[in-house]
Protein backbone atom coordinates (compact mmCIF):
# COMPACT_ATOMS: atom_id res chain seq x y z
CA UNK A 1 0.00 0.00 0.00
CA UNK A 2 0.98 3.58 0.17
CA UNK A 3 -0.79 4.92 -2.90
CA UNK A 4 -2.70 7.88 -1.59
CA UNK A 5 -5.92 6.68 -3.18
CA UNK A 6 -8.23 9.31 -1.78
CA UNK A 7 -5.81 12.16 -2.33
CA UNK A 8 -5.47 12.82 1.37
CA UNK A 9 -2.03 14.35 1.21
CA UNK A 10 0.57 14.37 3.96
CA UNK A 11 -0.93 17.24 5.91
CA UNK A 12 -4.36 15.78 6.24
CA UNK A 13 -2.88 12.34 6.93
CA UNK A 14 -0.98 13.81 9.85
CA UNK A 15 -4.13 15.49 11.09
CA UNK A 16 -5.89 12.12 10.99
CA UNK A 17 -3.17 10.38 12.94
CA UNK A 18 -2.47 13.06 15.48
CA UNK A 19 -5.52 12.76 17.80
CA UNK A 20 -4.90 9.06 18.31
CA UNK A 21 -1.22 9.67 18.87
CA UNK A 22 -1.92 12.37 21.43
CA UNK A 23 -4.22 10.10 23.41
CA UNK A 24 -1.76 7.23 23.24
CA UNK A 25 1.07 9.53 24.15
CA UNK A 26 -0.63 11.02 27.16
CA UNK A 27 -2.31 7.95 28.61
CA UNK A 28 -0.01 5.14 27.56
CA UNK A 29 3.50 6.29 26.76
CA UNK A 30 3.75 9.07 29.28
CA UNK A 31 2.64 6.90 32.23
CA UNK A 32 5.25 4.35 31.23
CA UNK A 33 7.96 6.99 31.27
CA UNK A 34 6.65 8.48 34.48
CA UNK A 35 6.89 5.06 36.07
CA UNK A 36 10.61 5.24 35.51
CA UNK A 37 10.84 8.63 37.19
CA UNK A 38 8.51 7.84 40.08
CA UNK A 39 10.45 4.68 40.76
CA UNK A 40 13.47 6.82 41.58
CA UNK A 41 11.65 8.91 44.23
CA UNK A 42 10.19 8.33 47.64
CA UNK A 43 6.83 9.65 46.47
CA UNK A 44 3.91 8.83 48.73
CA UNK A 45 0.15 9.12 48.49
CA UNK A 46 -0.09 11.20 51.66
CA UNK A 47 2.16 12.98 54.08
CA UNK A 48 5.30 15.04 53.60
CA UNK A 49 6.69 12.99 50.73
CA UNK A 50 3.46 13.57 48.86
CA UNK A 51 4.08 17.28 48.71
CA UNK A 52 7.80 17.18 48.07
CA UNK A 53 9.00 13.83 46.81
CA UNK A 54 12.74 13.34 47.12
CA UNK A 55 14.98 11.73 44.58
CA UNK A 56 16.27 8.54 46.14
CA UNK A 57 18.15 6.94 43.25
CA UNK A 58 17.95 3.20 43.13
CA UNK A 59 16.86 2.85 46.75
CA UNK A 60 13.41 1.58 45.81
CA UNK A 61 14.94 -1.10 43.62
CA UNK A 62 17.40 -2.08 46.28
CA UNK A 63 14.62 -2.23 48.82
CA UNK A 64 12.38 -4.29 46.55
CA UNK A 65 15.10 -6.75 45.67
CA UNK A 66 15.96 -7.34 49.31
CA UNK A 67 12.31 -7.41 50.42
CA UNK A 68 11.25 -10.95 51.19
CA UNK A 69 7.68 -10.02 50.29
CA UNK A 70 8.77 -8.99 46.79
CA UNK A 71 10.76 -12.18 46.37
CA UNK A 72 7.88 -14.33 47.43
CA UNK A 73 5.51 -12.37 45.22
CA UNK A 74 7.80 -12.88 42.23
CA UNK A 75 7.99 -16.60 42.92
CA UNK A 76 4.21 -16.83 43.25
CA UNK A 77 3.87 -15.01 39.93
CA UNK A 78 6.17 -17.50 38.25
CA UNK A 79 4.04 -20.33 39.65
CA UNK A 80 0.90 -18.57 38.51
CA UNK A 81 2.16 -18.04 34.96
CA UNK A 82 3.68 -21.50 34.55
CA UNK A 83 0.80 -23.27 36.23
CA UNK A 84 -2.21 -21.51 34.80
CA UNK A 85 -0.98 -20.25 31.43
CA UNK A 86 1.75 -22.56 30.18
CA UNK A 87 0.70 -25.84 31.77
CA UNK A 88 -2.99 -25.03 32.11
CA UNK A 89 -4.52 -22.88 29.38
CA UNK A 90 -2.14 -23.89 26.60
CA UNK A 91 -2.39 -27.63 27.20
CA UNK A 92 -6.10 -27.69 27.93
CA UNK A 93 -6.81 -25.31 25.06
CA UNK A 94 -4.97 -27.56 22.66
CA UNK A 95 -6.68 -30.66 24.00
CA UNK A 96 -10.11 -29.08 23.57
CA UNK A 97 -9.30 -27.87 20.05
CA UNK A 98 -7.96 -31.30 19.08
CA UNK A 99 -10.79 -33.31 20.57
CA UNK A 100 -13.50 -30.91 19.35
CA UNK A 101 -12.61 -31.68 15.73
CA UNK A 102 -13.92 -35.20 16.11
CA UNK A 103 -17.12 -34.34 17.97
CA UNK A 104 -20.60 -34.19 16.55
CA UNK A 105 -21.69 -30.63 15.86
CA UNK A 106 -24.10 -30.13 18.79
CA UNK A 107 -21.58 -31.48 21.31
CA UNK A 108 -18.84 -29.43 19.74
CA UNK A 109 -21.00 -26.31 19.92
CA UNK A 110 -21.77 -26.97 23.58
CA UNK A 111 -18.12 -27.47 24.51
CA UNK A 112 -16.86 -24.46 22.59
CA UNK A 113 -19.77 -22.32 23.72
CA UNK A 114 -19.13 -23.04 27.40
CA UNK A 115 -15.42 -22.44 27.11
CA UNK A 116 -16.07 -19.16 25.32
CA UNK A 117 -18.70 -18.10 27.81
CA UNK A 118 -16.24 -18.41 30.65
CA UNK A 119 -14.02 -16.02 28.74
CA UNK A 120 -16.69 -13.55 27.75
CA UNK A 121 -18.24 -13.07 31.20
CA UNK A 122 -16.95 -9.95 32.96
CA UNK A 123 -14.02 -10.63 35.27
CA UNK A 124 -15.71 -9.43 38.40
CA UNK A 125 -18.71 -11.67 37.81
CA UNK A 126 -16.48 -14.62 37.17
CA UNK A 127 -14.66 -13.97 40.41
CA UNK A 128 -17.97 -14.16 42.28
CA UNK A 129 -18.87 -17.39 40.53
CA UNK A 130 -15.70 -18.90 41.88
CA UNK A 131 -16.18 -17.46 45.32
CA UNK A 132 -19.53 -19.20 45.35
CA UNK A 133 -18.05 -22.40 43.98
CA UNK A 134 -15.21 -22.55 46.47
CA UNK A 135 -17.01 -21.26 49.57
CA UNK A 136 -16.25 -23.03 52.81
CA UNK A 137 -19.78 -23.50 54.03
CA UNK A 138 -22.16 -23.74 51.13
CA UNK A 139 -19.79 -24.00 48.17
CA UNK A 140 -20.76 -26.30 45.34
CA UNK A 141 -17.35 -27.90 45.27
CA UNK A 142 -17.47 -29.00 48.88
CA UNK A 143 -20.94 -30.40 48.35
CA UNK A 144 -19.73 -32.26 45.31
CA UNK A 145 -16.53 -33.63 46.79
CA UNK A 146 -18.17 -34.22 50.13
CA UNK A 147 -15.51 -32.15 51.87
CA UNK A 148 -17.61 -29.83 53.99
CA UNK A 149 -15.76 -27.05 55.70
CA UNK A 150 -12.76 -26.99 53.37
CA UNK A 151 -11.89 -23.33 52.82
CA UNK A 152 -10.25 -23.67 49.42
CA UNK A 153 -9.41 -19.99 49.07
CA UNK A 154 -7.75 -19.96 52.49
CA UNK A 155 -6.12 -23.37 52.50
CA UNK A 156 -5.04 -23.53 48.87
CA UNK A 157 -5.03 -19.95 47.61
CA UNK A 158 -2.50 -20.45 44.82
CA UNK A 159 -4.12 -23.63 43.56
CA UNK A 160 -7.46 -21.83 43.58
CA UNK A 161 -6.35 -18.86 41.53
CA UNK A 162 -4.41 -21.10 39.13
CA UNK A 163 -7.44 -23.30 38.41
CA UNK A 164 -9.56 -20.17 38.26
CA UNK A 165 -7.32 -18.62 35.63
CA UNK A 166 -7.25 -21.83 33.58
CA UNK A 167 -11.03 -21.80 33.59
CA UNK A 168 -11.13 -18.20 32.60
CA UNK A 169 -8.49 -18.08 29.89
CA UNK A 170 -8.53 -21.42 28.06
CA UNK A 171 -10.81 -20.02 25.37
CA UNK A 172 -8.07 -17.99 23.73
CA UNK A 173 -5.75 -20.97 23.34
CA UNK A 174 -8.64 -23.09 22.14
CA UNK A 175 -9.54 -20.61 19.41
CA UNK A 176 -5.98 -20.07 18.35
CA UNK A 177 -5.27 -23.79 18.11
CA UNK A 178 -8.58 -24.47 16.36
CA UNK A 179 -7.57 -22.01 13.68
CA UNK A 180 -4.11 -23.54 13.52
CA UNK A 181 -5.44 -27.08 13.21
CA UNK A 182 -7.65 -26.04 10.33
CA UNK A 183 -4.46 -25.32 8.44
CA UNK A 184 -3.12 -28.84 8.88
CA UNK A 185 -4.17 -30.61 5.69
CA UNK A 186 -6.42 -33.57 6.56
CA UNK A 187 -4.58 -35.60 3.94
CA UNK A 188 -1.42 -35.47 6.04
CA UNK A 189 -3.23 -36.85 9.07
CA UNK A 190 -4.90 -39.50 6.91
CA UNK A 191 -1.53 -40.58 5.60
CA UNK A 192 -0.14 -40.84 9.10
CA UNK A 193 -3.17 -42.76 10.32
CA UNK A 194 -3.04 -45.15 7.40
CA UNK A 195 0.59 -45.76 8.23
CA UNK A 196 -0.66 -46.85 11.65
CA UNK A 197 0.71 -43.93 13.62
CA UNK A 198 -0.71 -43.51 17.10
CA UNK A 199 -2.31 -40.24 18.12
CA UNK A 200 0.88 -39.24 19.89
CA UNK A 201 2.93 -39.91 16.76
CA UNK A 202 0.48 -37.99 14.59
CA UNK A 203 0.74 -35.04 16.92
CA UNK A 204 4.51 -35.09 17.09
CA UNK A 205 5.27 -35.79 13.45
CA UNK A 206 2.49 -34.10 11.53
CA UNK A 207 0.72 -31.51 13.62
CA UNK A 208 3.31 -29.87 15.82
CA UNK A 209 5.78 -28.95 13.10
CA UNK A 210 2.98 -27.21 11.24
CA UNK A 211 1.66 -25.17 14.14
CA UNK A 212 4.95 -24.29 15.82
CA UNK A 213 4.40 -20.59 15.18
CA UNK A 214 0.97 -20.72 16.75
CA UNK A 215 2.22 -22.56 19.81
CA UNK A 216 4.93 -20.02 20.42
CA UNK A 217 2.63 -17.06 19.84
CA UNK A 218 0.06 -18.52 22.15
CA UNK A 219 2.55 -19.20 24.93
CA UNK A 220 3.99 -15.71 24.71
CA UNK A 221 0.66 -13.92 24.70
CA UNK A 222 -1.06 -15.87 27.42
CA UNK A 223 2.04 -15.65 29.59
CA UNK A 224 2.14 -11.90 29.08
CA UNK A 225 -1.52 -11.52 29.93
CA UNK A 226 -1.44 -13.88 32.89
CA UNK A 227 1.63 -12.13 34.21
CA UNK A 228 -0.32 -8.86 34.22
CA UNK A 229 -3.64 -10.25 35.40
CA UNK A 230 -5.21 -8.46 38.32
CA UNK A 231 -8.40 -10.54 38.56
CA UNK A 232 -7.07 -12.96 41.24
CA UNK A 233 -7.23 -9.97 43.55
CA UNK A 234 -10.99 -10.31 43.44
CA UNK A 235 -10.79 -13.88 44.70
CA UNK A 236 -8.17 -13.75 47.42
CA UNK A 237 -7.02 -10.11 47.60
CA UNK A 238 -3.51 -11.57 47.76
CA UNK A 239 -4.20 -13.34 51.02
CA UNK A 240 -4.15 -15.10 53.27
CA UNK A 241 -0.91 -13.59 54.58
CA UNK A 242 0.27 -12.80 51.08
CA UNK A 243 0.21 -16.41 50.02
CA UNK A 244 -1.43 -15.53 46.70
CA UNK A 245 0.05 -12.08 46.32
CA UNK A 246 1.17 -12.11 42.70
CA UNK A 247 3.04 -9.04 41.41
CA UNK A 248 0.06 -7.00 40.15
CA UNK A 249 -1.60 -7.39 43.53
CA UNK A 250 1.67 -6.61 45.29
CA UNK A 251 2.01 -3.34 43.38
CA UNK A 252 -1.56 -2.40 44.19
CA UNK A 253 -1.04 -3.27 47.85
CA UNK A 254 2.12 -1.27 48.40
CA UNK A 255 1.35 1.66 46.09
CA UNK A 256 -2.33 2.45 46.16
CA UNK A 257 -3.26 0.72 49.39
CA UNK A 258 -0.03 1.29 51.30
CA UNK A 259 0.52 4.70 49.77
CA UNK A 260 4.16 4.10 48.79
CA UNK A 261 3.82 5.25 45.22
CA UNK A 262 7.54 5.46 44.56
CA UNK A 263 8.18 1.92 45.66
CA UNK A 264 5.19 0.71 43.67
CA UNK A 265 6.42 2.48 40.56
CA UNK A 266 9.79 0.80 40.91
CA UNK A 267 8.15 -2.62 40.89
CA UNK A 268 5.90 -1.51 38.02
CA UNK A 269 9.00 -0.67 36.06
CA UNK A 270 10.37 -4.15 36.65
CA UNK A 271 7.05 -5.51 35.33
CA UNK A 272 7.41 -3.28 32.28
CA UNK A 273 10.87 -4.67 31.63
CA UNK A 274 9.63 -8.25 31.83
CA UNK A 275 6.71 -7.39 29.53
CA UNK A 276 9.19 -5.84 27.14
CA UNK A 277 11.11 -9.10 26.87
CA UNK A 278 7.93 -11.02 26.04
CA UNK A 279 6.78 -8.40 23.57
CA UNK A 280 10.11 -8.15 21.77
CA UNK A 281 10.23 -11.90 21.22
CA UNK A 282 6.65 -11.84 20.01
CA UNK A 283 7.19 -8.97 17.58
CA UNK A 284 10.29 -10.71 16.24
CA UNK A 285 8.17 -13.74 15.46
CA UNK A 286 5.51 -11.56 13.91
CA UNK A 287 8.05 -9.88 11.67
CA UNK A 288 9.67 -13.13 10.65
CA UNK A 289 6.16 -14.24 9.63
CA UNK A 290 6.52 -17.26 11.85
CA UNK A 291 3.67 -16.12 13.95
CA UNK A 292 0.09 -16.23 12.78
CA UNK A 293 -1.48 -12.84 12.17
CA UNK A 294 -4.12 -13.90 14.66
CA UNK A 295 -2.87 -11.81 17.43
CA UNK A 296 -2.04 -8.79 15.39
CA UNK A 297 -2.76 -7.01 18.62
CA UNK A 298 -1.05 -8.34 21.69
CA UNK A 299 -2.99 -5.84 23.71
CA UNK A 300 -5.94 -8.03 22.88
CA UNK A 301 -7.12 -7.94 26.42
CA UNK A 302 -6.59 -4.27 26.78
CA UNK A 303 -4.66 -2.62 29.52
CA UNK A 304 -6.84 -3.97 32.28
Amino acid at each position, binding site marked *: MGTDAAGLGRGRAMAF*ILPALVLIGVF*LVFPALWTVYLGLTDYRLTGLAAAEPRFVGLDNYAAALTDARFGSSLWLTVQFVLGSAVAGQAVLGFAVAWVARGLRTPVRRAVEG*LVLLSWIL*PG*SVVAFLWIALLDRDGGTLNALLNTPGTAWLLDHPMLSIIVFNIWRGTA*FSMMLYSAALENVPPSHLETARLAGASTACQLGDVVLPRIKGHVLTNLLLISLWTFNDFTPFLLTAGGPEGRSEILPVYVYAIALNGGRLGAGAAVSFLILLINLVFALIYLRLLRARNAPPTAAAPGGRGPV
Partner: protein
Amino acid sequence: MVRHVLARLGVTAFVAVLLGFFALPMLWLATAPFDAGASIRVSVPEFTLANFRALLVNPFAVGSLVNSAVQAGGAAALVVVLAALAAYALSRVQVPGRDLLLYLLLLMSSIVTGTAAMVPIFELATRLNLIDTHLGVILVVSGGLLPAAIFILKDFTDATPASYEESARVFGASPLQILRHVVVPLIRPGLATIAVWTVANVWGGFLLQFILIRDPGLAPGSVILYTLYTEGGQPDLPLVSAFSLVYSLPVVLMYVFVSGRYGFRFHGGIKR
Protein backbone atom coordinates in the same frame (compact mmCIF):
# COMPACT_ATOMS: atom_id res chain seq x y z
CA MET B 1 -10.47 -52.58 17.84
CA VAL B 2 -10.05 -52.56 21.58
CA ARG B 3 -7.74 -49.63 21.26
CA HIS B 4 -10.37 -47.83 19.24
CA VAL B 5 -13.10 -48.42 21.81
CA LEU B 6 -10.81 -47.30 24.60
CA ALA B 7 -9.96 -44.19 22.68
CA ARG B 8 -13.62 -43.34 22.19
CA LEU B 9 -14.30 -43.94 25.88
CA GLY B 10 -11.39 -41.70 26.73
CA VAL B 11 -12.69 -38.92 24.52
CA THR B 12 -16.18 -39.21 25.98
CA ALA B 13 -14.85 -39.07 29.51
CA PHE B 14 -12.71 -36.08 28.66
CA VAL B 15 -15.63 -34.22 27.13
CA ALA B 16 -17.80 -35.02 30.16
CA VAL B 17 -15.18 -33.73 32.59
CA LEU B 18 -14.64 -30.70 30.41
CA LEU B 19 -18.32 -29.82 30.30
CA GLY B 20 -18.54 -30.32 34.05
CA PHE B 21 -15.49 -28.17 34.74
CA PHE B 22 -16.69 -25.28 32.66
CA ALA B 23 -20.37 -25.52 33.55
CA LEU B 24 -20.01 -25.99 37.29
CA PRO B 25 -19.14 -22.42 38.27
CA MET B 26 -21.87 -21.10 36.00
CA LEU B 27 -24.61 -23.08 37.66
CA TRP B 28 -24.74 -20.56 40.45
CA LEU B 29 -25.31 -17.75 37.98
CA ALA B 30 -28.19 -19.68 36.48
CA THR B 31 -29.94 -20.53 39.74
CA ALA B 32 -29.12 -18.09 42.52
CA PRO B 33 -30.66 -14.98 40.95
CA PHE B 34 -34.06 -16.69 40.96
CA ASP B 35 -33.72 -18.26 44.36
CA ALA B 36 -35.74 -16.86 47.24
CA GLY B 37 -33.08 -18.01 49.68
CA ALA B 38 -30.10 -17.28 47.49
CA SER B 39 -26.85 -18.19 49.08
CA ILE B 40 -23.52 -19.54 48.03
CA ARG B 41 -25.18 -22.91 47.62
CA VAL B 42 -26.41 -24.08 44.25
CA SER B 43 -29.89 -25.39 44.84
CA VAL B 44 -33.10 -26.00 43.02
CA PRO B 45 -34.43 -22.49 43.30
CA GLU B 46 -37.53 -21.53 45.09
CA PHE B 47 -38.49 -19.42 42.12
CA THR B 48 -38.76 -15.69 42.68
CA LEU B 49 -37.98 -12.42 40.99
CA ALA B 50 -37.65 -10.63 44.30
CA ASN B 51 -33.88 -10.42 43.91
CA PHE B 52 -34.28 -8.35 40.78
CA ARG B 53 -36.75 -6.13 42.56
CA ALA B 54 -34.21 -5.61 45.32
CA LEU B 55 -31.79 -4.56 42.64
CA LEU B 56 -34.11 -1.76 41.57
CA VAL B 57 -34.20 -0.23 45.02
CA ASN B 58 -30.48 -0.46 45.54
CA PRO B 59 -29.12 3.08 45.23
CA PHE B 60 -26.18 2.19 42.99
CA ALA B 61 -27.04 -0.97 41.08
CA VAL B 62 -29.08 0.43 38.21
CA GLY B 63 -26.98 3.57 38.06
CA SER B 64 -23.81 1.52 37.77
CA LEU B 65 -25.15 -0.18 34.66
CA VAL B 66 -25.76 3.23 33.17
CA ASN B 67 -22.23 4.22 34.17
CA SER B 68 -20.84 1.09 32.53
CA ALA B 69 -22.82 1.87 29.39
CA VAL B 70 -21.62 5.48 29.33
CA GLN B 71 -17.99 4.51 29.82
CA ALA B 72 -18.09 1.59 27.39
CA GLY B 73 -20.05 3.52 24.78
CA GLY B 74 -17.90 6.61 25.11
CA ALA B 75 -14.68 4.64 24.84
CA ALA B 76 -16.01 2.65 21.88
CA ALA B 77 -17.00 5.81 20.03
CA LEU B 78 -13.67 7.47 20.74
CA VAL B 79 -11.60 4.42 19.84
CA VAL B 80 -13.52 3.68 16.65
CA VAL B 81 -13.32 7.24 15.35
CA LEU B 82 -9.70 7.92 16.24
CA ALA B 83 -8.46 4.47 15.25
CA ALA B 84 -10.31 4.59 11.94
CA LEU B 85 -8.84 7.97 11.02
CA ALA B 86 -5.34 6.97 12.02
CA ALA B 87 -5.51 3.53 10.45
CA TYR B 88 -6.80 4.93 7.19
CA ALA B 89 -4.11 7.56 6.96
CA LEU B 90 -1.40 5.06 7.89
CA SER B 91 -2.67 2.57 5.38
CA ARG B 92 -2.91 4.95 2.45
CA VAL B 93 -0.31 7.63 2.93
CA GLN B 94 3.40 7.06 3.21
CA VAL B 95 3.87 9.04 6.39
CA PRO B 96 7.56 9.29 7.28
CA GLY B 97 8.57 6.75 9.91
CA ARG B 98 5.34 4.84 9.55
CA ASP B 99 6.71 1.35 10.08
CA LEU B 100 8.69 2.35 13.12
CA LEU B 101 5.65 4.12 14.53
CA LEU B 102 3.47 1.05 14.10
CA TYR B 103 6.12 -1.13 15.68
CA LEU B 104 6.47 1.15 18.69
CA LEU B 105 2.71 1.41 19.10
CA LEU B 106 2.34 -2.33 19.12
CA LEU B 107 5.22 -2.71 21.53
CA MET B 108 3.87 -0.05 23.85
CA SER B 109 0.37 -1.42 23.89
CA SER B 110 1.58 -4.85 24.87
CA ILE B 111 3.92 -3.81 27.63
CA VAL B 112 2.15 -0.89 29.25
CA THR B 113 -0.64 -2.72 31.02
CA GLY B 114 -2.91 -1.34 33.68
CA THR B 115 -0.90 -3.33 36.16
CA ALA B 116 2.40 -1.86 35.16
CA ALA B 117 1.16 1.71 34.90
CA MET B 118 -1.40 1.99 37.66
CA VAL B 119 0.66 4.31 39.79
CA PRO B 120 1.38 6.98 37.17
CA ILE B 121 -2.10 6.63 35.69
CA PHE B 122 -3.57 7.36 39.09
CA GLU B 123 -1.18 10.29 39.48
CA LEU B 124 -1.91 11.64 36.03
CA ALA B 125 -5.66 11.38 36.49
CA THR B 126 -5.39 13.14 39.82
CA ARG B 127 -3.47 16.07 38.35
CA LEU B 128 -5.75 16.38 35.35
CA ASN B 129 -8.79 16.33 37.64
CA LEU B 130 -9.99 13.19 35.95
CA ILE B 131 -10.54 11.17 39.12
CA ASP B 132 -14.24 10.45 39.56
CA THR B 133 -15.19 11.36 36.01
CA HIS B 134 -16.45 9.23 33.17
CA LEU B 135 -14.15 11.14 30.88
CA GLY B 136 -11.15 9.98 32.89
CA VAL B 137 -12.05 6.32 32.46
CA ILE B 138 -12.84 6.83 28.79
CA LEU B 139 -9.58 8.61 28.01
CA VAL B 140 -7.33 6.26 29.95
CA VAL B 141 -8.94 3.13 28.57
CA SER B 142 -8.96 4.48 25.02
CA GLY B 143 -5.28 5.35 25.20
CA GLY B 144 -4.55 1.73 26.04
CA LEU B 145 -6.81 0.20 23.42
CA LEU B 146 -5.99 2.51 20.51
CA PRO B 147 -2.72 0.96 19.31
CA ALA B 148 -4.25 -2.48 18.89
CA ALA B 149 -7.37 -0.97 17.35
CA ILE B 150 -5.31 0.98 14.83
CA PHE B 151 -3.44 -2.16 13.96
CA ILE B 152 -6.55 -4.22 13.38
CA LEU B 153 -8.25 -1.52 11.35
CA LYS B 154 -5.15 -0.97 9.27
CA ASP B 155 -5.35 -4.65 8.39
CA PHE B 156 -8.91 -4.14 7.22
CA THR B 157 -8.03 -1.07 5.16
CA ASP B 158 -4.95 -2.67 3.66
CA ALA B 159 -7.16 -5.49 2.46
CA THR B 160 -9.47 -3.06 0.66
CA PRO B 161 -8.46 -2.35 -2.95
CA ALA B 162 -7.55 1.27 -3.52
CA SER B 163 -9.47 1.34 -6.80
CA TYR B 164 -12.77 2.07 -5.01
CA GLU B 165 -11.37 5.25 -3.59
CA GLU B 166 -9.58 6.18 -6.81
CA SER B 167 -12.74 5.64 -8.75
CA ALA B 168 -14.67 7.96 -6.45
CA ARG B 169 -11.84 10.44 -6.68
CA VAL B 170 -11.91 10.56 -10.46
CA PHE B 171 -15.64 11.31 -10.19
CA GLY B 172 -14.70 14.32 -8.15
CA ALA B 173 -15.34 13.21 -4.58
CA SER B 174 -13.34 15.05 -1.93
CA PRO B 175 -11.21 13.06 0.54
CA LEU B 176 -13.83 13.45 3.25
CA GLN B 177 -16.62 12.40 0.89
CA ILE B 178 -14.58 9.36 -0.12
CA LEU B 179 -14.15 8.50 3.53
CA ARG B 180 -17.87 8.83 4.23
CA HIS B 181 -19.28 7.30 1.06
CA VAL B 182 -16.76 4.60 0.34
CA VAL B 183 -14.22 3.78 3.01
CA VAL B 184 -16.43 3.66 6.08
CA PRO B 185 -19.03 1.35 4.49
CA LEU B 186 -16.26 -0.88 3.15
CA ILE B 187 -14.53 -1.38 6.48
CA ARG B 188 -17.74 -1.52 8.48
CA PRO B 189 -17.07 -5.08 9.70
CA GLY B 190 -13.75 -3.85 11.04
CA LEU B 191 -15.38 -0.89 12.75
CA ALA B 192 -17.96 -3.21 14.30
CA THR B 193 -15.21 -5.51 15.48
CA ILE B 194 -13.40 -2.66 17.17
CA ALA B 195 -16.57 -1.29 18.73
CA VAL B 196 -17.56 -4.65 20.18
CA TRP B 197 -14.05 -5.37 21.33
CA THR B 198 -13.80 -2.01 23.08
CA VAL B 199 -17.20 -2.34 24.72
CA ALA B 200 -16.33 -5.83 25.96
CA ASN B 201 -13.02 -4.61 27.32
CA VAL B 202 -14.46 -1.65 29.17
CA TRP B 203 -17.59 -3.40 30.33
CA GLY B 204 -15.60 -6.20 31.92
CA GLY B 205 -12.69 -4.04 33.06
CA PHE B 206 -12.07 -3.65 36.75
CA LEU B 207 -8.64 -2.36 37.72
CA LEU B 208 -8.61 1.03 35.97
CA GLN B 209 -12.17 1.81 36.93
CA PHE B 210 -11.40 0.74 40.48
CA ILE B 211 -8.45 3.12 40.61
CA LEU B 212 -10.04 6.06 38.82
CA ILE B 213 -13.50 6.09 40.39
CA ARG B 214 -14.06 6.58 44.08
CA ASP B 215 -17.61 7.89 44.03
CA PRO B 216 -20.00 4.89 44.01
CA GLY B 217 -22.51 7.01 42.11
CA LEU B 218 -20.12 7.04 39.15
CA ALA B 219 -18.70 3.53 39.49
CA PRO B 220 -19.41 0.98 36.77
CA GLY B 221 -20.99 -2.42 37.37
CA SER B 222 -17.71 -4.26 37.73
CA VAL B 223 -16.79 -2.13 40.73
CA ILE B 224 -20.26 -1.83 42.24
CA LEU B 225 -20.49 -5.62 42.37
CA TYR B 226 -17.90 -5.46 45.16
CA THR B 227 -19.88 -2.97 47.19
CA LEU B 228 -23.02 -5.04 47.47
CA TYR B 229 -22.57 -6.02 51.09
CA THR B 230 -25.13 -6.64 53.78
CA GLU B 231 -25.08 -4.63 56.96
CA GLY B 232 -23.29 -7.54 58.56
CA GLY B 233 -20.34 -7.00 56.21
CA GLN B 234 -21.06 -10.13 54.15
CA PRO B 235 -21.69 -10.06 50.41
CA ASP B 236 -25.42 -9.59 49.86
CA LEU B 237 -25.73 -12.74 47.81
CA PRO B 238 -29.27 -12.40 46.47
CA LEU B 239 -28.35 -8.98 45.21
CA VAL B 240 -24.91 -10.03 43.92
CA SER B 241 -26.29 -12.96 41.98
CA ALA B 242 -29.12 -10.99 40.39
CA PHE B 243 -26.79 -8.15 39.57
CA SER B 244 -24.17 -10.49 38.11
CA LEU B 245 -26.75 -11.90 35.74
CA VAL B 246 -28.09 -8.55 34.63
CA TYR B 247 -24.59 -7.19 34.27
CA SER B 248 -23.34 -10.15 32.22
CA LEU B 249 -26.23 -10.36 29.81
CA PRO B 250 -25.38 -7.36 27.59
CA VAL B 251 -21.85 -8.57 26.74
CA VAL B 252 -22.97 -12.13 26.19
CA LEU B 253 -25.80 -11.01 23.94
CA MET B 254 -23.45 -8.74 22.10
CA TYR B 255 -21.04 -11.59 21.39
CA VAL B 256 -23.86 -13.86 20.30
CA PHE B 257 -25.14 -11.19 17.96
CA VAL B 258 -21.75 -10.43 16.50
CA SER B 259 -20.74 -14.04 16.08
CA GLY B 260 -24.06 -14.76 14.40
CA ARG B 261 -23.56 -11.86 12.06
CA TYR B 262 -19.88 -11.92 11.23
CA GLY B 263 -18.81 -15.36 12.43
CA PHE B 264 -16.82 -15.69 15.59
CA ARG B 265 -13.50 -14.10 14.79
CA PHE B 266 -12.45 -12.91 18.17
CA HIS B 267 -9.04 -14.23 18.95
CA GLY B 268 -8.04 -12.23 21.92
CA GLY B 269 -10.69 -9.88 20.74
CA ILE B 270 -9.09 -9.92 17.33
CA LYS B 271 -10.46 -10.90 14.00
CA ARG B 272 -9.22 -13.90 11.98
